């Protein structure tokens, strides 16, 4: 997500020159048709980055969904993202979990690895170290299920690559704040 190698904008200001940061936003929305399109369209329309996005209904009775978005950019741009999301009519609340601090982030991944002999036992040893579970096995493959922070999944995937990584499916990040209070 580096800045493109184009000449600096003639309109460039003090804004947008600072360091790129990565923030996790939690967005509570009405679970109505098109709400995800509104959120995603806002990001593409205004040129914001999405590194990860998850969405699911969290309160069935109230028709509330929670969208967790990992975005990157200068702090001023991320502040803009928050305000722009708040402008959407079906949005109840936007919380920047990175700013409020102390949040928990987890992701689930399923990782398919192919191999025979020593590679199989090596894969199992590493899986144990990472607390990954075997959810499917054949004579020449495993599917591991792994939950954790995104960087933990990244490292596990990297370790599987030389052994015989076939493919990965990841859910994207879900996040929640610590302590008793809601966001």
């Amino acid at each position, binding site marked *: 997500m580096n800045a493109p190698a184009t000449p600096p904008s*003639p*309109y460039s*200001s003090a804004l947008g020159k600072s360091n790129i940061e990565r923030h996790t936003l939690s967005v509570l929305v*009405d679970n109505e*048709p*098109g709400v995800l399109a509104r959120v995603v369209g806002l990001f593409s329309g205004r040129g914001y980055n999405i590194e990860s996005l998850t969405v699911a209904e969290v309160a069935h009775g109230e028709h509330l969904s929670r969208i967790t978005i990992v975005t990157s950019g200068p702090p*001023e741009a991320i*502040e803009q993202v928050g305000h722009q999301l708040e402008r959407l*009519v079906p*949005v109840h609340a936007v919380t920047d979990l990175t700013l409020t601090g102390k949040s928990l982030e987890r992701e689930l991944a399923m990782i398919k690895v192919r191999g025979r002999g020593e590679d199989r036992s090596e894969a199992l040893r590493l899986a144990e170290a990472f607390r990954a579970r075997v959810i499917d096995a054949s004579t020449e493959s495993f599917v591991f299920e792994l939950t954790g922070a995104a960087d933990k999944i990244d490292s596990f995937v990297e370790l599987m690559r030389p052994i015989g990584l076939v493919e990965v499916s990841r859910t994207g990040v879900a996040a929640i704040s610590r302590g008793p209070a809601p966001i």
Partner: protein
Amino acid sequence: MSKQMTGAEMVVTALKDQGVETIFGYPGGAVLPIYDALFQQDFVQHVLVRHEQGAAHAAEGYARSSGKVGVLLVTSGPGATNAITGLADALMDSIPLVCITGQVPTHLIGSDAFQECDTVGITRHCTKHNYLVRSIEDLPRILHEAFYVASHGRPGPVVIDIPKDIQFAAGLYTGPQNIQHKTYQPQVKGDLARIREAVAMMAAAKRPVFYTGGGVINSGPEASALLRELVQLTGFPITSTLMGLGSYPASGENWLGMLGMHGTYEANHAMHDCDLMIAVGARFDDRITGRLDAFSPGSKKIHIDIDPSSINKTVKVDLSIIGDCAHVLEDLVRIWRTQAAQVDKPALAQWWKQIDVWRARKSLAYRPSTTTIKPQYAIQRLYELTKNRDTYITTEVGQHQMWAAQHYHFEEPNRWMTSGGLGTMGYGLPAAVGVQMAHPKALVIDIAGEASILMNMQEMSTALQYRLPVKIFILNNEYMGMVRQWQQLLHGARYSSSYSEALPDFVKLAEAYGGHGIRCSDPAKLDDAIMEMIETPKAVIFDCLVEKEENCFPMIPSGKAHNEMILAELGDDAGVEIGSIIDERGKLLV
């Protein structure tokens, strides 16, 4: 009050309950039930436009001149897509609209049915919010919610897409009284601690300037009244964006004129050199700021706006106050009075002295002519001959628009309707139709260019049908003037496709529509011709033949700062290579 009725009847009843007396629209297959319901009542008057874009701009003109929500009704597919330019225009200029679109029946959605398009998908990016009605039970709530969303917070257009089967379905209608929006509750009162801080900053300022925008107009006439009071109390100079003209009277002592790309020398220099900028309902648009990294480098900035996303979007401010302009200004004036705040009088006197030096440059001056009509002169005469009447001005987009903003002087809000953000050619005539519907007895003039007017010329027919005596005042220079000016500045005067070839005879065109046509090319006869236009009790096209290659000055060239603006004497000076004014970086900009 609840009552059993069809969806189409609900639409018309809801319009009535919302106090809507006039809507603009065009029928088609997917809205026939609503048109049938309209036919059977006479509270809501329907104005038949000649193109759906015209309906959207007419609704904008109606809304901007009356302060009410503008309403348009169009059919599915092409009806909806034709309205899109107007919706995008209303979104950029924060104009409250409700656009009702017909849709193919629910069971056909997604089947590429005749005149089907994904209206909510297409309009998602050019509306404040939109709805696809999926069941008759939701319809009454959505209808009333749409008016609430369009008019509350920062106003904007809202689309309600209603499938034809829902229009036929019967259900229980409920009135607007019980509508409580669960998520959308914009903050209108400003934070008092911040307002007190603003008072302290204003009292301490040595070189202050008010920079006001369309938000003051949108906030209602009371916001303009409070702004005038605050300017009176403080004695600060005030400038405004294109969108904000009229909120402070142009005849007021503290008025610097419009700022920005074609703003006055004094307004732009005051912005550049001020030590305190008080932005009220303005959004630091690129037409205002010029080069951002050289924008008002030495000032503290206060920003009052109802939209939190406007704060720090392009320009970092020192104090932000979120709230509706009228509410915040009311508190600001009250606290200023109760604290008996005093301005720094000696510093302010010094500041005014400097401003007078800038004013003395007379940046709106132009070289007069006795043989051809200068476009600036035409606007000046139009102003002089209409200023004592109940006049409303709309414009198209281009040079004529900027000359109108510079040389027509507005004393009151809601008198000036122009496409600011989107810059939509073809806006002015349908907007004038909308204004005239809202103010039947007023003098409504569309200041136009000969190129822009042809974009929605068909609305002349609407004007005639409803006996709307709108005046179309064309500054005809046979060029898309602003395009030609930029080609001269940037592209070596290679006038690629900017000459208006094969123009119609506008006098005959007026007559063909059943209106009155006037042509004038002699400065000495201009006044009489304008009087003839004013006194003609029906729609008039005035073909005013003006100097062909006049440029619009002053101007901040692209990529330059406020204090690098160029004046007419420089631009017209044969010794200066006009094409060299904009540098390579500026050429990249729009």
